């Protein structure tokens, strides 16, 4: 019973830690939120609803996440910006053995230097989560964004 309740709270904490990590720009820590054989996909709601397979990002292992981090930090030229995730209440949709299926709405506010803060990307996380020794990890993280027009580019993970 308590375990059940605690799990619900821990899932909420997972989202809180996840966004804190990204919003602080601690990209090196980002892959730690995932399992080795994870999949991280960012996909437009348009493609998702029409069953079109294209993703804006489609990383199919923690290694691929490390490659993304390297690109963000060393190879992808971009104007620096702040991200701020506002995540709504997370909800556990189902359980398959050890795996939790959870979802939460998110909004990312972007702030570029000398510019007003702006709505950058809004959508839904649909995630498969497992508990490992160190805590909860994403096996599968799907970011389905409503935002039809990406304001130029997405450099950092969502």
């Amino acid at each position, binding site marked *: 019973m308590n375990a059940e309740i605690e799990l619900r709270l821990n899932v909420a904490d997972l989202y809180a830690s996840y966004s804190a990590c990204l919003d602080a720009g601690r990209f090196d820590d980002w892959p730690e939120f995932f399992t080795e054989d994870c999949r991280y996909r*960012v996909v*437009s709601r*348009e*493609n998702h609803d029409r069953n*079109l*397979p*294209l*993703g*804006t*990002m*489609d*990383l*199919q*292992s*923690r*290694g*691929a996440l*490390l*490659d993304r981090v*390297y*690109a963000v930090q*060393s*190879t*992808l*030229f*971009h*104007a620096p910006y702040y991200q701020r995730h506002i995540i709504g209440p997370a909800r556990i949709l189902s359980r398959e053995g050890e795996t939790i299926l959870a979802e939460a709405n998110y909004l990312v506010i972007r702030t570029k230097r000398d510019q007003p803060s702006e709505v950058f990307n809004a959508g839904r996380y649909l995630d498969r989560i497992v508990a490992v020794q160190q805590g909860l990890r994403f096996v599968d993280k799907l970011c389905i964004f409503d935002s*039809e*027009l*990406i*304001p*130029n*580019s*997405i*450099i950092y993970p969502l």
Partner: protein
Amino acid sequence: MRTRQAPQAEAVDWNGPGSSRIPAAVYVDPAIYARELERIFYGAHWNYVGLEAEVPTTGSFKRTTIGERSVIMVRNRDGNINVLENRCAHRGLRFCQERVGKVRTLVCPYHQWNYNLDGKLIAVPFRLGVKGQGGMPADFSLADRRLNPLKVASRGGVVFASFDHDVEPLDQYIGAEVLTYFDRTFNGRPLVVQGYSRQRIRGNWKLMMENIKDPYHPGLLHTWFVTFGLWRADNQSQLIMDSHGRHACMISRRNEVVDEDVANAASSYRANMKLHDPRMLDVVHEPWWGAPTVCMTTVFPNVIFQQQVNSLSTRQIIPQGPDQFDFVWTHFGFEEDSAEMSARRLQQANLFGPAGFVSADDGEVIEYCQDGLRQSEDFATLCELGGTAIGNTDHMVTETLIRGMYRYWRKVMEQ
């Protein structure tokens, strides 16, 4: 466009007849932009609207935009594709709101004027009045009003349209040289859409054309290209243009070995870089490529055709005023693709689009270009790599394609 008629754009000072030093005004002046809409996007040019595969059957439609005008690409009862301006002939409603769909006729919601798939007006409610009162005047005929039809041409499954019905034939418009490479990808094989990406980029629309006519930057801006030899200044390559210099192909071939000088020249080169997940570059040579591993084709004014190893896309430019444009990517494959190849194209798509390892930064630099060009009107760019001449080359150390585009632009714009 918000201005009454293309306002008299004051002549821009180019310091002579050349096109290698582009004045800042060309990118920022609203009057010049208004004329671009009139003469380029709404004039005697072919604009990309989509792929036939997007409107498979009768009544299938796709809404898109040419310049700033909304149009509907729809397949009619004969199986032909029409492109109709999305504006009701009654009171002007841009009536089609969904992006894609399937309809029997086109109906405007305001008063339910009804058009067939060729844009012909077929029904007007209460046209004959009610109980003998009102209705359309006696001399009104359904033939008097219709949806504005564009001229349409399709080749290899790719659909183009023009507001000007006197535009030259598409093949002649693209020209034999470029057509060869267009046909290389679009040889009639059925296409399959894998998905879309949409960006809004705060820069003048021509900056995107320049970017894809610029073989100088990939080896310098895009570390990935350099490091993995996908694109390097020393790669064997060709630049070709149509006779006007408005369209172009950048053709090159991959090269695993890194030329010392080139590597050193590019501070962005990372010798030690390794992918933790190499699948993103699991390139498999496709027979139809021939020698080239990459071919970037720009068809003036609004489309880019990308073949980058196994990743294929069309990239459509939709201008939104002089200082921003929307950029729509349609990634596709072929019906004949194996499951592995489809997956491979999707994997390699990580390199492209708004978050792409080698294209996200293109959007970024375009935005800063616009910022810099806005700063003062006395500035002109310097596009003289490879000199000031315009012509095809078998190397990439030149900005000739950019010069070519602006030579044509000056002619059309009388600027």
